[in-house]
């Protein structure tokens, strides 16, 4: 429903509902955008401030990056919408399997 254009010629479309949905979605986008800016700011701050070791900074920034990717996927690339269950399942399965393989390669391959 929410994916249909507003100018649809379908007379049974509930415009009120649609507008409400759009407002809600816009709010989510703005909130997540603000959060992403904030996360980016933190990432810069961690590097700029003295006192943090590299072994803390690198995993911390990677964690922030992962959170941003999730925001990006769900609120800007519409994965939060209905009908995206199969793609997201495949995406996360592939990601998991890929990471397991990378982890294995980093730990058990000897040179």
């Amino acid at each position, binding site marked *: 429903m929410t994916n249909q254009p507003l100018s649809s010629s379908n007379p049974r479309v509930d415009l009120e509902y649609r507008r409400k949905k759009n407002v809600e979605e816009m709010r989510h986008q703005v909130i997540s955008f603000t959060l992403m800016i904030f996360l980016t700011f933190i990432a810069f701050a961690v590097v700029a401030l003295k006192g943090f070791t590299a072994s803390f900074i690198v995993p911390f920034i990677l964690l922030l990056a992962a959170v941003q990717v999730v925001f990006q996927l769900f609120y800007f690339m519409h994965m939060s919408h209905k009908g995206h269950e*199969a793609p997201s399942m*495949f995406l996360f*399965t*592939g990601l998991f*399997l890929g990471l*397991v*393989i990378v982890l*294995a*390669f980093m*730990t*058990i*391959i*000897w*040179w």
Partner: protein
Amino acid sequence: MSTYAQKKGFGATVWDYLTTVDHKKIAILYLIAGGLFFLIGGLEAVFIRIQLAVPNNDFVSAGAFNEIITMHGTTMIFLAAMPLLFAFMNAVMPLQIGARDVAFPFVNALGFWLFFFGGIFLNLSWFLGGAPDAGWTSYASLAIHSKGHGVDFYVLGLQISGFGTLMGGINFLVTIINMRAPGMTYMRMPLFTWSTFVASAMILFAFPPLTVGLTLMMFDRLFGANFFEVAMGGNTIIWEHLFWVFGHPEVYILILPAFGIFSEIFSTFSRKRLFGYSSMVFATVLIGFLGFMVWAHHMFTTGLGPVANAIFAVATMAIGVPTGIKIFNWLFTMWGGSVKFTTPMYYAFGFIPSFVCGGVTGVMVATAAADYQYHDTYFVVAHFHYVIVGGVVLALLAGTHYWWPKMFGTMLNETLGKITFWLFFIGFHLTFFIQHFLGLWGMPRRVFTFLPGQGFDAANMVSSVGAAFMSAGVILLLLNIVVTQVKNVKVGNDPWEDGRTLEWAIPSPPPFYNFKQLPLVRGLDALWLEKMEGKKGMTPAEPLGDIHMPNASFIPFMISLGLFIAAFGAMYHVNDKPWAIPVLILGLAVTFGSMLVRSLKDDHGFHIHKEELQDEKGAEA
């Protein structure tokens, strides 16, 4: 359409198949090509057994023996087992979910032609200076030092056919996700469709590592790179990992559809709903998932260290649990059922003890400490032939008998079928059971001969006699096919009389649009449900309307042919042949030119009009 039943000339039929995008015809192409490679791989197996029948034999030389074992493994896995499973997936899966074709018919044809040209390329190595000889796993430490072009044929041929397989897998996924008939929820899909779905997902995740490995190997051998060359700072172990990250899921890609075929057969001929359907689905998905977590159990003796070995050993044994669930569900399906002993059911019966044997030895070799003893002996050879022949090949033979009427409209002879089963089944156990003991007695695998008086003589002879029985079984199956097609007695919608799933609701072979009206699915075993309520067929889910169909196209053939030509250019480029680079460019030009034509030319397909569908006799949907 009246043209459907028309007699056509030979040339017209060939052109029809070269350009077809119909999933049922592509299935027949897969069946023929896969069957041909199965016979070639079988012939290689017979050569192996002749060579090893007696000690100190010189039927083939040591070098030729290496080529034969390499090509036997490669051909059987990539060019016989997978395409034959793809044949059944193509023929049956769209019918089982009530679809008119796969999601991308053009890509389906492209997938077939890529596989076919890759396979032909690989097998041309026999005539062009020697086949690959580094084993089907082509471990880099052997492969990059292999003389001649054998391994290049392996790398380029598998790369091309791998593209085709990947496309096929994605196509099946999209088809199952998007094109199920009204009412066909995920938990109403027949088990064969479920296993096609999971196997396709595994193809999607498993083939990229193979592509990466083959690309690196190609650069090492053809373009002077050193990814696997230890002396130049490369790492030969990485190939082993990349290969098995693909290779282990690959064996589940083979066995899951085999499980699917047997699930259909057990439930049809026990005339009972499959026992524990939802646990079967769960087990299938779980096997598919765990299949990615176990690859290093092929490398226990490489020196991964005890922690890694232990993790992979435990993960491997965990797969025994969902597999056990399946075995018990099949047994309980038969329990209390009214079992009918048809040829497919014979195979299904034979499958259970054979596959359990393979599973038990699987847990044995999964025990990392014990594997140091089994590794590289005939015990391992016996193990994987018990799962692949006892599982996959029996399923392929069962599926051939079971779906032959649906694919060709004729029924294979049951008596000949049962004789085939007994010949093949006895031959199989005769060949491979004794190999467990050969392995335990210390016979290493991949040796081209052995000395007399080590206690291997009699056992090897027994094994070779078994191979003769299996060959006789396969020849009888071919005879059966010829006799059946010559007699050409046509059968109706549901020739087994106990069909449960949607493919049995339409004529055999189905009209090219499959379903005149898409069926309404009201539960698991949709057709059985309707039959039990005294109805003749499915309730339509839509009014009779125009059907949109894709046009036939010669472009898939051309795209694949271009890559086939380009591969020769890439390969002979190392010999400084002046024509190599032009041939490479020509081939790629053909491929990309064909893709350009496909992109620029609009092809909207055509409609079968309502009136034509009404005129047609028979074809109830």
